[in-house]
């Protein structure tokens, strides 16, 4: 179960994990009341799938992933920002070479962990992940 997703972001993660093409049970629950967040989205996946935790961390580092076996939470994972990301975010700088050379991977490196800032490997344009 992917919990504590910022309300409205669930659909994005749903697509990002290709869950719209899943052949197992998947539920996206939106706007669930939350004491901590006001409201939140939740994704329940009835299967063992390889989740790219770094990708999830990049989308929203506040997300938690709970592994549930026989109706009990067996593992709770908090997410971290990955050091490097390739082809998850795109550079918005119109002067960046990636806007022209389409075969090039969009690569970012974590430049400021406390601010959650990434920089484009090519032009150093900042991409700010929402603050944790």
């Amino acid at each position: 179960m992917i919990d504590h997703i910022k309300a409205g972001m669930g659909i994005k993660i749903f697509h990002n994990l290709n869950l719209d093409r899943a052949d197992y049970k998947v539920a996206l629950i939106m706007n669930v009341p939350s004491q901590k967040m006001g409201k939140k989205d939740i994704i329940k996946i009835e299967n063992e799938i390889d989740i790219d935790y770094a990708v999830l961390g990049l989308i929203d580092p506040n997300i938690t992933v709970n592994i549930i076996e026989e109706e009990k939470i067996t593992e709770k994972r908090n997410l971290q920002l990955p050091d490097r990301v390739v082809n998850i975010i795109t550079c918005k700088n119109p002067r960046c070479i990636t806007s022209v050379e389409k075969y090039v991977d969009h690569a970012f490196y974590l430049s400021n962990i406390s601010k959650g800032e990434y920089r484009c490997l090519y032009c150093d344009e900042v991409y700010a992940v929402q603050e944790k």
Partner: protein
Amino acid sequence: MDECPSSASVVDEGIFLLGGEMTLKGRHLLDPSDFSLEELSEIFELADSIINDPASFSEKCKGKILATLFYEPSTRTRFSFEAAMLRLGGQVIGFSEPSSSSVAKGESIADTIRTIACYADIAVMRNPKEGAPRIASMYASIPVINAGDGGHQHPTQTLADLLTIRSVKHSLDNLTIGCCGDLKFGRTIHSLIKALGRYKNNAFVLVSPKELQVPEYILNEVLNKGQLPFKQVEKLEEVISELDILYMTRVQKERFFNEEDYIRLKDSYILDNEKMKHARPDMIVLHPLPRVNEIAYEVDDDPRAFYFQQAKFGMFVRMALILKLLGVE
């Protein structure tokens, strides 16, 4: 967040593995910080040897070819590189605008550099798109030197600046550096602050109109993070007497989105003899050139004006860089 069309991954080591080697031979120069202070020192020492005895280097690159890939016009940087290679006894091929090359047919940078690497031993690239030389370096089997990529980096200008300061002031430490003019869009200034911030006890005085102050990331990630002493002021007259180095920059028309702003600001910071009266006798004036009117012609005769020597140091440092990257000494 936008999703990319191609496969997503957070672990792609190869793309990030650039630099970090122990020798300069075969390396690329994309960003001034690609080289350690020791490696920079190696280049400057070799440049000193070239300055002292250029004749003994005149055939060092015999049989070697430099390719100059200039995707936008540049007179002095291209000439400086070409002169550097010719003075080393090497030869030069290349293009000075994309319309006269296969680029006009839509060839990618990856293909261009791989083809050029079949003909040349080292390549120099200027491109208006930021990060273009990095892509070239990823596909090149020969060293690639960034000769300016948009408003991003221009590392050999920084090497020229450092060599000039080192040669004239005999040190790169304990200096108060004044940067005046367009500090927002001026990539040479950003690179210079980053580069001089790596040396000991340097302080910066940033002189610009509010609209053209250094960007946030230079303030936060270089000056504040490095705990470098600095101040931001609007008037050159107020601070010129404190400076060891005054680095003037042009207010570049092409960096403005709005012509009105350009016209309003371009004459704001002009260095003339009146202002020079208040400067220290050993202060030096530098400028990456070309100048428009930010330094009055009357200042050219002042012995503290070093901007034309700076251009010459630029050629010498490029000679040293070519030798080091080719592994020829």
